[in-house]
């Protein structure tokens, strides 16, 4: 009799997210019920205590992200998951995590907006909110999965990037991928790379929690390890204490942004498909990239040389990756379940040298392969 492979599963996207978080070493989840992300909380409420972790349903979305930051400061990898309205509520504390450089992961399963919008329908309207939802100039990392397996992998990657760069990472899923069930084979747990925050190797007296050095990423002591330092959302200097000194503020905020900019090649991931000889470039992400791939195949069968660039990282924006491949194409097609948030960025990245054709849908329905195909083969 064949022994069943324990790594094969029929999982929903949200389940894969919860399982990926556990595989990444997440041992704390705080959340608040919201469609269509709730399954992540439900799965973790069952799984985390079974492995000695902690799950807590907080009184609101703001409390959930607050608790996540608190847990992370205590040295435990922490996750919260939400959707549109809840993501709006979390923004202030996401800014705190950026400013105080506390690693954490926020899942936003996008649904139709604005406001309460379409709780049970898919959308990709939070691209700009994920980038600029919290106030002030700040860096952020945003990843977007297109499949169940990728949701698993990307949740692990989100934790690794959060720990490596001391920054909140947003996993920007959508209702389609989150509620899609696929058969997947997950990697052997032993083969998964896990990154932990860099610990200080100096004595507590010498520790500077926001030290500016050649890495731009300060070492992070956890609370209770003898380092007794101060964490604040106020502008602070290397010691972590608030300052009004313009030079010190400038130095810290520039480092904060630079730590992501200079590592964008490590952070930005795209996947290209049939782009070598293409005449039409399709740029897509999330669930829409699945339809886009089919549209590219269909276009090629009709004799139109189309190619796909699928963005796995959305922020930092993959402008350099687009730069490398767009010069020879006649046009660029950007399908997305919003009114052109990525198309706008593509126009900037390509200096409007090529026509950017938008395929937009905001009625809660996914974009079909045919809708993208029509735009690829259209001579207009």
């Amino acid at each position: 009799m064949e022994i069943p492979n324990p790594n094969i599963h029929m999982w929903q996207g949200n389940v894969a997210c919860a399982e990926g978080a556990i595989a990444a070493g997440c041992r704390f989840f705080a959340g608040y019920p919201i469609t269509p992300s709730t399954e992540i909380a439900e799965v973790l409420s069952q799984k985390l205590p079974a492995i000695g972790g902690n799950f807590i349903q907080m009184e609101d979305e703001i409390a959930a992200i607050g608790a996540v930051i608190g847990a992370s400061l205590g040295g435990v990898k922490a996750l919260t998951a939400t959707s549109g309205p809840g993501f709006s509520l979390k923004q202030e504390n996401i800014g705190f995590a950026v400013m105080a450089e506390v690693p954490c992961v926020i899942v936003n399963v996008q649904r139709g907006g604005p406001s309460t919008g379409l709780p049970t329908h898919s959308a990709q309207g939070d691209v700009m909110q994920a980038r600029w939802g919290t106030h002030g100039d700040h860096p952020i990392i945003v990843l977007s999965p297109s499949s169940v397996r990728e949701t698993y992998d990307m949740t692990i990657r989100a934790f690794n990037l959060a720990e490596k760069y001391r920054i909140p990472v947003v996993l920007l899923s959508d209702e389609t991928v989150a509620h899609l069930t696929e058969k997947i084979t997950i990697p052997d747990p032993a083969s998964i790379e896990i990154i932990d925050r860099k610990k200080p190797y100096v004595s507590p007296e010498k520790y500077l929690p926001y030290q500016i050095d050649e890495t731009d990423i300060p070492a992070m002591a956890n609370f209770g390890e003898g380092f007794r330092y101060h964490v604040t959302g106020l502008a602070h200097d290397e010691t972590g204490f608030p300052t009004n000194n313009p030079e010190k503020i400038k130095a810290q905020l520039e480092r904060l942004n630079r730590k992501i900019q200079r590592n964008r090649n490590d952070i930005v991931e795209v996947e290209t498909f049939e782009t070598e000889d293409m005449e039409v470039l399709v740029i897509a992400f999330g669930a829409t990239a699945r339809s886009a791939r089919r549209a590219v195949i269909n276009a090629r069968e009709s004799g139109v040389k189309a190619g796909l660039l699928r963005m796995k990282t959305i922020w930092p924006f993959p402008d350099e990756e687009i730069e490398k491949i767009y010069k020879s194409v006649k046009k660029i097609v950007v399908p997305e379940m919003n009114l052109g948030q990525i198309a706008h960025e593509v126009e900037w990245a390509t200096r409007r040298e090529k026509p950017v054709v938008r395929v937009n849908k905001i009625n809660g329905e996914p974009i079909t392969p045919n809708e993208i195909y029509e735009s690829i083969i259209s001579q207009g």
Partner: protein
Amino acid sequence: MDYLQYLRKDKMPHIWCDGCGHGIVLKSILRVIDKLGWDKNNIAMISGIGCSSRTPGYVDFNTLHTTHGRGLTFATGLKIARPDLHVIVVSGDGDATAIGGNHFIHAARRNIDISVIIYNNYIYGMTGGQVSPTTPGGKKASTTPYGNPDTPFDISRLAQAAGAAYVARSTAFHVGKMDRYIEQAFTKTGFSVVEVLTPCPTSYGRRNKEGRGVDMLMYQKQNSIGIEQAKGKTAEELKGKYITGVFVDKEQADYRQRYDEVIKKASKLNK
């Protein structure tokens, strides 16, 4: 005792005004910590935003100055992740019961093992004296120039109703009581609240013609009444009085004990 061993001397002078009661509360907290002999490395002090919320910056513990009203949420995450730490939240009346009111009642309901010291000065001091949820009716603030039309919260009663394991109220004048209440709160397993009425001469006293800090402390002395003495008195007799004392002191399983039961069940079921 040597207060300086707990203070970050290089962060002095503090931002609190002459006559502010906040420093009296801080000294009381430090006296209790010294008496209990807690290791500074095992203490986390967390705050939100406001005058009281600047306290963590001055003390040599693990300190966290969070967003407005949210100190308790960060504290909840930290306490769950690190049950070994003594987690103290310092907060003001606006921070704890306006913007953070939801977190306050839910932390009490959960009975999570955190101590909250609320510096209640009935006003938003840091932003210049706006009306708060505890400003008495009729009193003036920068946003109630005709007198406060609203009814104030009774923070201690609120904490009691929400399920806290320990609740007490003192004034900044009654330092001996304050020390005792804070010690009882710090040694209580579960959610404990000490509400301290503290004068804000700059933003509250001046506008309401209540004099300087010392005058306001003397007023507290003359107008406080113990919770036992207050029993049986009519609302009319208690008007303008500060009721102080221990409102709640009960034993009940805290969040950690209850969640450890969850962990036990889950571990068995998922074997």
